């Protein structure tokens, strides 16, 4: 997908789908700093604590270890460690409750690391 970085004057937008979601999806690349969370509950500002790529998820509320990660109002996985508001939520701190290979992928490329090529 094509990625773009907005001018520094406009904080990047993250889209929240369900009112009870604890993650939102970035619509552009975000650097550490302010992020607008837009969605069904209106708009508010939070602070990204690290760079987060377009289409990836930002925690919009603190998530305890093994607590549900919620998007679309449904459980999409479990936190593998405590996650603070503003952190990137992905394969390094969230796993599927179904797919046993869920923790076996490179966090940036998604390439599986559990298959030997030797």
């Amino acid at each position, binding site marked *: *997908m094509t990625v773009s970085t907005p001018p520094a004057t406009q904080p990047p937008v993250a889209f929240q789908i369900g009112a009870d979601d604890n993650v939102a999806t970035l619509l552009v690349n975000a650097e550490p700093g302010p992020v607008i969370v837009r969605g069904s509950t209106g708009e508010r500002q939070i602070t990204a604590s690290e760079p987060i790529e377009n289409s990836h998820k930002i925690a919009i509320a603190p998530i305890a270890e093994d607590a549900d990660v919620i998007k679309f109002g449904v459980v999409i996985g479990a936190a593998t460690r405590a996650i603070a508001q503003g952190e990137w939520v992905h394969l390094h701190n969230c796993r599927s409750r*179904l797919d046993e290979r869920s923790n076996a992928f490179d966090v940036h490329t998604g390439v599986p690391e559990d298959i030997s090529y030797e």
Partner: protein
Amino acid sequence: MNEPIDKSISEAIWQSGNNAGWRGYLRSDGRKGIRNIILVVYTVECASHVAHSIGNGEQDVHVIGFPGCYDNQYAIRMILALGRHPNIGAVLTVGLGCEYTQPSKIAQSVRESGRPADSFFIQENGGTATSIALGKQKISQLRAEMDIQVQLVPMSWSDLVVGSECGGSDGTSGLAGNPVVGAFFDLLVDRGGTAIFEEIVEMIGLRPILDARGATPQASEQLRNAYDKTDRYCREVRQYSVAPGNFAGGLTTIEEKSMGAFAKSGSRPIQGVIRVAERPPHNGLWLLDSVPDAHFMQFGYTNPNDTEGIMDLICAGSQIILFVTGRGSVIGSAVSPLIKVTGNSITYNRMKDDMDFNAGRILSGEITLPAAAEELAALVRAVATGQLTKPEALGHREYFLMYKHQDTPALEAGCHA
């Protein structure tokens, strides 16, 4: 399996203001088409060049075919469902002459549905050139017969069956592209129409949600059974429908991808599960199960490509297909027009000639989801009244028929419980 049309209801909807009806092609089974297409069907790959050449330069002639020489009940059911589709007015079947699949039997079945149909074997009529000439001659005879029979009648939302499919998904598909289709499906169902969604392999993780969406206890049981079969299938083939590109694109788990795909279903109760080449027994929202059933040969993949899934939806009687793509796709379809929806404004602007609807405006805040769904409904209505979709205008007529196994009863036997 089709209830008789209540003319008074149909007329009342036809007359009511902002949901005013349009004209459709009445078929003998009571269904109505939004197009009147002559379908050329080849029954083995060896006849494909002749079949396509017959269709070349002909107005409203689409070509489909089955590549295999050996026949397959699943594929035959699909060919019959396409030949008797509401958008089809006449059929010509073309065989080489030595294959298992029988062109004359297909033509006979289509004639019994009240449509003009004809067939021939290439080996009995000379070679390539003479067969193309014969086919074109038969097309003009079929067209003449079809034009005499044609019956244009009032048509409304309740006569419309719309299918939805996604492919080339990105982060916007679950946020805007699929939700706008879901919100439109709610409108369609509320107006008495029929909506069909599929891709059960992308519903893994959603068993309780599916169960709760069942319109009746029987519907919920069908949904649980379809889910459990798919779950077994995924575990047996040791693969979930999520790929490295999805992870790199920001999706973290199959549950997340599933919910983004499931958004296409909207929020209305699900009436039950149909199988490939079955028609919904009544109006409302339906799930289509295209996952192969357990079989001694274990053959058949669920959805080897997007076009295969689109054909499944068309075989169920969908007169229009909504195709959601975030990254962009350049497919279309034979038989039923494809409306291309993207949730990505960058993709929309890059592929304007191919994209029919930009749901990316929901994400930029230009339009609300309910407003976008109303706009999509207006587009669907325009296409139903004859407006060409972008893929149609570009000449896209993709099709895909393949070997698979499902324990589906014959079409006449109705819905599989």
